[in-house]
């Protein structure tokens, strides 16, 4: 048996091999071509998805008031996107707005009303019922009101407008208190004042970035946090992608390159606080060059005489040639637009500086024309602009508290203990107040000091409405509706106020039982002022369509004419900025800027924001101090070295980051980190530069001059590795981000329609 015959063997082998192959091929060739198209593996994303429900609402992550539409599935919010029909953001939404979901689903939310049991700030609370909590508060208010001491009640709220603000007003009026403050750290007091002072407008104008051809931004980081970043971004994009005519040019003037600076075509570093002087220098040039041909030319040249480019050049550190060139461009490119804000506006000379910017716009004839700056009409409805508390009024509040003039402080949303410099001693002021009530839904620095916590809904769970303050050139209002039912035992701020009102017995003047009614009522009034065809449809339809669209607007534009009178012109002038601390002891100027991720710190408890690399530095989880490379070299510091930043008013510890685009005598720190409370994601992370700011104020508005603090750096000798996602942020001659001289004139080498795959093998 063992001796296999060779022929036998050969046959076997042949048959086996060939047979197998041929057989497969045969079976193969009988197949229908369609069988090949999809492999037998299906990517898991391919399962067909369910039907989502979309709700239109309003984003309240910052004060811009963008429209959002929220995608919900099975009663859970899944994604926030921009509301396409909302004129402010036109369907787009910034990262922070999208992270609103994590406000709703944040694991650190306060889920029940709480009453303090232990020491203040000891975080010892007991859970109580709403009845109990509201009862206690109402009782106190009742007593004070009866005792005619209603003014000892203070309501300190985050910036709200619309009918909630109105409700606050009438509520406080009923209590007999005039202590209603809206406090936002980044509220542009100086900008309002400047426009009031120069244009006589108490509302912000509309800055038409979309149609402008040269934008001159004095320190305003308009792409991330200046007034209405989304709308400005849209304008920026539109102007950059303009097909028919030449693309818009953007110039950014600031001591530290912001995102807007990076996006700009030119970044000019003027020494901090002198932006206004620079603006006047340009104005001077324009007038002297006869660009401005107005009747009052003489007044102008008189007013601007002290600001000849040469003098301005030595004050600002910007070369004279640059100043004149910019001035000529600004006058020559029509329409052009100058805006100011950010750090530049937060100096001791903030208002004057912004007036100077307005002067530029006026001289170049940009006022009231497309592509320039347009005046907004009065916001819709009867909503007046609520009083915004400046730093000064916060100081006064603290003072009053120390005097024992405040018995009850109700805090809604805002977090002054974090955003006010330690020098304001607001924490101490709180100690002097017998009853501190917080309506916040997070344990932020202020809330932990509260005696009574009545947690409010997140904005995705509550009714509200918003009339974008910045406006879009015409009247816009938007209603925000709950997109999910409340996750926890919390109530909407409006409802809390309403039920308080009922208990105190204000039902005559505040009749509504729920915020929804209140809002609906308010919108009925707006509806009644509406134009005929709106009225024709009847209110219910109007209301329904409003909720569907999420936004309402009518195209009535504001005034376009403007003539400044003599004494305004005469009064124009920008003083040199004042800094606290002597230059010898404190060689550096601290430049705190709003972090794109955390805004004024409210975003620090959102894990998405914490994990999103900072756009400019790619640092995640933590804060840093930015140094010019040469400065760092002089001090012998490298990235990650821990330094103490010492101001006359305290010190913070932060690692060094070498930042190529910052002036050598300026150091910059992002605001937003350095929370001592505020949930697991924010607690004890990074440093808060606001702590060490000097209580320097802009005289007219009492706005805190956040950029007017001098500091010194003290190396601690310790070193940490900055957690950042970027490796080497230099393309080593690899031409990865390619640039072209001028659009259209260079034919790209990239094979556009790409080689058909049949050519590859």
């Amino acid at each position, binding site marked *: 048996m063992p001796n296999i015959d060779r022929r036998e063997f050969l046959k076997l082998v042949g048959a086996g091999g060939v047979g197998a192959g041929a057989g497969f091929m045969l079976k193969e060739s009988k197949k229908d071509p369609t069988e090949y198209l999809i492999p*037998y593996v299906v990517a898991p994303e391919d399962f067909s998805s369910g039907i989502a429900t979309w709700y239109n609402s309003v984003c309240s992550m910052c004060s811009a008031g963008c429209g959002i539409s929220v995608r919900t599935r099975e009663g859970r919010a899944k994604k926030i996107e921009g509301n396409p029909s909302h004129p402010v953001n036109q369907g787009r939404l910034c990262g922070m707005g999208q992270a609103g979901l994590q406000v709703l689903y944040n694991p650190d939310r306060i889920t029940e009303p709480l009453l303090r049991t232990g020491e203040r700030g000891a975080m010892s609370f007991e859970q109580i019922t709403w009845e109990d909590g509201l009862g206690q508060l109402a009782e106190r208010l009742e007593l004070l009101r009866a005792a005619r001491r209603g003014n000892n009640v203070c309501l300190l709220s985050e910036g709200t407008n619309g009918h909630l603000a109105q409700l606050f007003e009438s509520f406080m009026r009923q209590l007999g208190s005039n202590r209603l403050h809206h406090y936002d750290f980044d509220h542009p007091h100086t900008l309002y004042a400047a426009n009031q002072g120069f244009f006589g407008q108490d509302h912000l104008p509309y800055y038409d970035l979309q149609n402008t051809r040269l934008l001159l931004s004095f320190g305003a980081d308009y792409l991330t946090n200046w007034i209405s970043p989304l709308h400005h971004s849209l304008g920026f994009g539109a102007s950059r992608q303009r097909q028919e005519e030449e693309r818009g040019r953007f110039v950014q003037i600031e001591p530290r390159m912001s995102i807007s600076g990076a996006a700009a075509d030119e970044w000019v570093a003027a020494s901090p606080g002198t932006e206004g002087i620079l603006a006047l220098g340009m104005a001077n040039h324009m007038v002297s060059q006869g660009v401005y041909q107005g009747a009052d030319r003489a007044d102008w040249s008189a007013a601007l005489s002290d600001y000849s480019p040469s003098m301005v050049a030595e004050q600002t550190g910007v070369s004279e040639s640059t100043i004149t060139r910019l001035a000529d461009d600004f006058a020559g490119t029509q329409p052009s637009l100058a805006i100011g804000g950010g750090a530049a506006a937060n100096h001791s000379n903030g208002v004057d500086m912004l007036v100077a910017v307005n002067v530029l716009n006026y001289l170049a004839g940009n006022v009231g024309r497309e592509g320039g700056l347009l005046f907004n009409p009065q916001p819709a409805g009867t909503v007046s602009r609520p009083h915004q508390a400046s730093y000064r009024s916060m100081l006064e509040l603290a003072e009053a508290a120390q005097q024992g003039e405040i018995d009850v402080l109700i805090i809604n949303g805002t977090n002054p203990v974090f955003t006010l410099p330690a020098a304001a001693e607001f924490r101490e002021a709180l100690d002097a107040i017998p009853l501190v009530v917080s309506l916040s839904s997070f344990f932020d620095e202020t809330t932990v000091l509260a005696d009574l916590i009545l947690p409010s809904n997140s904005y995705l769970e509550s009714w509200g409405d918003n009339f974008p303050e910045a406006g879009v050139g015409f009247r816009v209002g938007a209603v925000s509706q709950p997109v999910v039912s409340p996750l926890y035992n919390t109530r909407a701020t409006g409802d809390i106020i309403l039920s308080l009102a009922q208990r105190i017995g204000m039902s005559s003047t505040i009749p509504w039982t729920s915020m929804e009614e209140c809002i609906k009522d308010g919108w009925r009034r707006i509806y009644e002022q509406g134009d005929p065809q709106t009225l024709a449809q009847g209110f219910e339809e109007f209301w329904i369509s409003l909720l569907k669209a999420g936004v309402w607007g009518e195209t009535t534009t504001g005034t376009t004419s403007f003539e400044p009178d003599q004494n305004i012109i005469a009064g124009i002038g920008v003083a040199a900025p004042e800094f606290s601390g002597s230059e010898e002891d404190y060689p550096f100027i601290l430049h705190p800027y709003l972090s794109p991720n955390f805004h004024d710190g409210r975003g620090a408890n959102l894990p998405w924001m914490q994990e999103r690399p900072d756009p400019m530095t790619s640092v995640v989880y933590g804060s840093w101090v930015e140094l010019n490379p040469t400065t760092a070299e002089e001090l012998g510091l490298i990235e990650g070295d821990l330094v103490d930043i010492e101001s006359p008013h305290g010190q913070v510890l932060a690692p060094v980051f070498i930042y190529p685009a910052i002036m050598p005598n300026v150091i910059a720190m992002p605001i937003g980190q350095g929370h001592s409370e505020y949930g697991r994601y924010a607690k004890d992370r990074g440093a808060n530069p606001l702590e060490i700011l000097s209580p320097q104020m802009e005289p007219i508005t009492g706005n805190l001059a956040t950029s007017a603090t001098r500091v010194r750096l003290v190396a601690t000798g310790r070193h940490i590795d900055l957690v950042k996602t970027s490796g080497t942020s230099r393309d080593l001659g690899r031409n990865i981000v390619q640039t072209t001289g001028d659009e259209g004139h260079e034919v790209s080498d990239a094979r556009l329609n790409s080689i058909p795959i049949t050519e590859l093998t």
Partner: protein
Amino acid sequence: MEAENNKLGYTDIHEDVVRSIVVTGPKYYATLATAGGLALVCFFFPWFYQLYYGIGAAGMNHPGVWGTYLASFIFWIGLSHSGTLLSCVLHLTNSSWRKAMYRSAEAMTLFSLVVAATYVFVHVGRPWFAHWTFPYPNQWELWPNFRSPLLFDVMAIATYLTGSTIFIYMGSIPDFAAVRDRTVGWRNTMYSLLSLGWRGTDTEWHRLHWAYTFLAVLIIPLAVSVHSIVSWDFAMSIVPGLHQTIFAPYFVVGAIYSGTAGIVTVMFVLRKYMGFEQYITKLHFDNLGKLLLVLSLLWTYINAIELFTGWYSGTSDEYEQLSFKLFGFYAPLYWEMILFCAVAPLLMISKRFRTSFVPMLILSIAINIGMYTERFLIVATSLPRQYLPDAWGFYAPSLVELSIMVGSFAVFTTLFLIFVKIFPSVSMYEVKETMETPKLKPAIPQAGSPA
């Protein structure tokens, strides 16, 4: 070697080998226990930990997704070369000095292959699905992707493992037979089974010879292909520093280089501790030394070519990668590698060095350290330095990785220790062949022979 061996008769060898198997002192058990324990603690426990927590237990990160696991994998594959390869070549060129050492050399091949194969499972993210890389009909109607260099790996290594197992087994059938008669109990049963009833008839010897020769012929190209394929895992990518045509020969040479060094180490250990002084002699070290010297020169040459490729390319990608390798964080390792693998081996030019045992041992270990470094550098200096500088990163092994690396040596040792107690670790019959056959003796008339 004749000079040393002709004192010994067939029986002596027989005795020695059988003793090496049957007689086990406490020293052996102590070593085995330590090795085994070390393997358990340093290799398996960390691995299980990693299985539980995920690859995150290792130090790999975004740009550096490959780490020491792959380096060790290549190292062990490399070590596995030359064992069998060498013995095949020497068998075909029938150089008799091979005979005393080839068995243990092949064993080394076998076990380093086993360790390497284990490393595949340690490396992948979901080892419990690793069988998907094998072509077998399944309910998803899915087959592996035969275009993938990694699949070539699977194929090549599976083949190589089979091949070298069979090769070492075939070679030792007669010895199993010989030992069989001298053992009792379970050993006897085992050897009876292993020896397949070998009797040593002239036919059997003849068949064995041919089969063995054919196997040798087949295994040589296989061994060469295996490491070429392993190198293609890298070379077929477009990663700067890996995308090099020289890689296949580079890896093959490197493999044989480290493998031969490994043999020297094992030779020394066997000679010293298994008592084979008479069989493993200066001659072996001398010849292996010569071989090592040639290989080291080859290796140096190819290494230089690799550098020049990067340098002359002039592209930022290659250049940055190269400068990071030569002067970056891992530069000390690089120069250490050059010292151990290119400079130190030049000592072997002198016969005195080649024929002195301890220095050769030290050198061989040094070479293998250098070769491990090479593999590590290939992974650690190229992946984190790719085309987009913004995505650059840095890779450093974690504790788990390091301990698994150490543990793998323990695993290898354990396996080897078990081997020497089961296989006759010196090929008896071939050593007997090398000795002169017994002298003719006057025949003794048989008493009581039938009339």
